[in-house]
């Protein structure tokens, strides 16, 4: 479990994250939603330690990450799987080498064991016989799946994803969402996803946090999201006429 207490973060005197407190439970998918520039990605980057917060606490199983020694932080980071918006695969390594990379750095596995584990992870994301390719030779959707395979290679306790569906078609996006959900259940990870994609939210979110202008504006589940009377959240979720009509239909109980 991860708990955030009063996280503040600014860049060049511009306050981005304004006292966000939240908790992310084990075995659950928490999705953080909000407009572009609302501070979602900065928040998640504070949580994984890429940006040190100006103030506040980030508790990993009760232990404050901001007060940990460098070695303790490294140990936490080894338990983190991260899926970046642009996949962040290593250009110079093949698909198989990318997935094997964390294993070569942090395990005592033999080369054969590492290869077996990497192939197992790639098969889990439905990538078969593509290990010899370089990331540039694969499609955007495939790169996301390879990044998931790399993220789960070390069987992480915490899984983070920064807009995993950006740039993907709706069908591929659902594949990615389902993979994240399956992995969360299978590995019992604490999963946090930053997204704009409301399909994804309605598909896999166990908990939803809405960030508005750097503050936590709302928190709830999918059912509560449909019935919310929070105006900013409504404006964000039901931005299009189609979504507004869909909501009205849902409210009337027209769809199950």
């Amino acid at each position, binding site marked *: 479990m991860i708990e955030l207490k009063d996280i503040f973060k600014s860049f060049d005197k511009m306050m981005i994250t304004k006292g966000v407190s939240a908790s992310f439970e084990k075995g659950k998918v928490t999705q953080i939603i909000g407009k572009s520039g609302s501070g979602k990605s900065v928040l998640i980057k504070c949580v994984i*330690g890429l940006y040190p917060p100006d103030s506040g606490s980030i508790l990993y199983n009760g232990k404050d990450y901001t007060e940990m020694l460098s070695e303790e932080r490294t140990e936490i980071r*080894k338990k983190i799987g991260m899926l970046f918006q642009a996949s*962040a695969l290593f250009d110079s390594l093949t698909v198989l080498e990318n997935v094997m990379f964390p294993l070569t*750095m*942090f395990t005592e596995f033999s080369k054969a064991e590492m290869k077996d584990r990497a192939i197992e992870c790639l098969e889990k994301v439905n990538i078969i016989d593509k290990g010899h390719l370089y990331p540039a030779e694969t499609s955007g959707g495939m790169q996301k799946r390879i990044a998931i395979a790399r993220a789960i290679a070390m069987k992480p306790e915490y899984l983070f994803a920064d807009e995993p569906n950006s740039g993907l078609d709706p069908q591929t996006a659902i594949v990615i969402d389902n993979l994240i959900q399956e992995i969360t259940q299978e590995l019992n990870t604490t999963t946090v996803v930053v997204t704009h994609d409301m399909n994804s939210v309605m598909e896999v979110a166990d908990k939803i946090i809405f960030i508005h202008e750097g503050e936590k504006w709302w928190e709830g589940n999918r059912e509560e999201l449909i019935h919310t009377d929070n105006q900013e959240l409504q404006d964000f979720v039901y931005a299009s006429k189609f979504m507004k009509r869909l909501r009205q239909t849902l409210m009337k109980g027209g769809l199950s």
Partner: protein
Amino acid sequence: MLMRRVFSKPERWRIYKVRILDEMDRLGVSSIGLVALLSLFMGAVICLQTATNLDSPLIPMSLVGYATRESVILELAPTMLCLILAGKVGSSIASELGSMRVTEQIDALDIMGVNSASYLILPKLIAAVVFFPFLIIISMILGIFGGYIVSVGTGILELQDYLDGIHMEFKVFHIVYGLIKTLFFAAIITTVSAYYGYTVKGGSLEVGRNSTKGVVGSSILILIFNYLLTQIMLI
């Protein structure tokens, strides 16, 4: 700050060894062709220019070989070559690291718990410091050979005069001096370019800008260190 991270204890030496060999290939071996070509022509031109400017009968023509050897060993091979390598290798390092930064590959390494500064920069630094002296030795040999080709091919001076000049008052220390300068220049090229690449903020435009800054910065430092080292070692 960055250098402190670069020199902190590596996670896995076994992996670093592989990366050092890989970087030697990418930064050093791949530059041999360029170094050979430049050195041959530089030596040839020095020989030609010196020979055409020595028209006094009181000055022995063997001085052409002497001047070629000294110019190549003391200055052209270590300094000129390293300035050219600052352009080739330095821009390659800065743009590689810059691209990795903007595509979040460096963030990915950090999140995995890998010391990205050490993992990415230290092998380049070691590879350059170890391999550049070999490049400069090749350059010294081929530079002098370039002068030899001119003397044989053009007949502008007698081959024996050139060879006499090459053997005239030869000091091994001058080669040592050239190699010591090379070690400093190799370290300057890799660290300055790596710094500009690693600290890129923004997009592809910034990668290009920082790549240029890396080349300019390392070239200026090479010139300054060239003067200081010469002052310290030769005067």
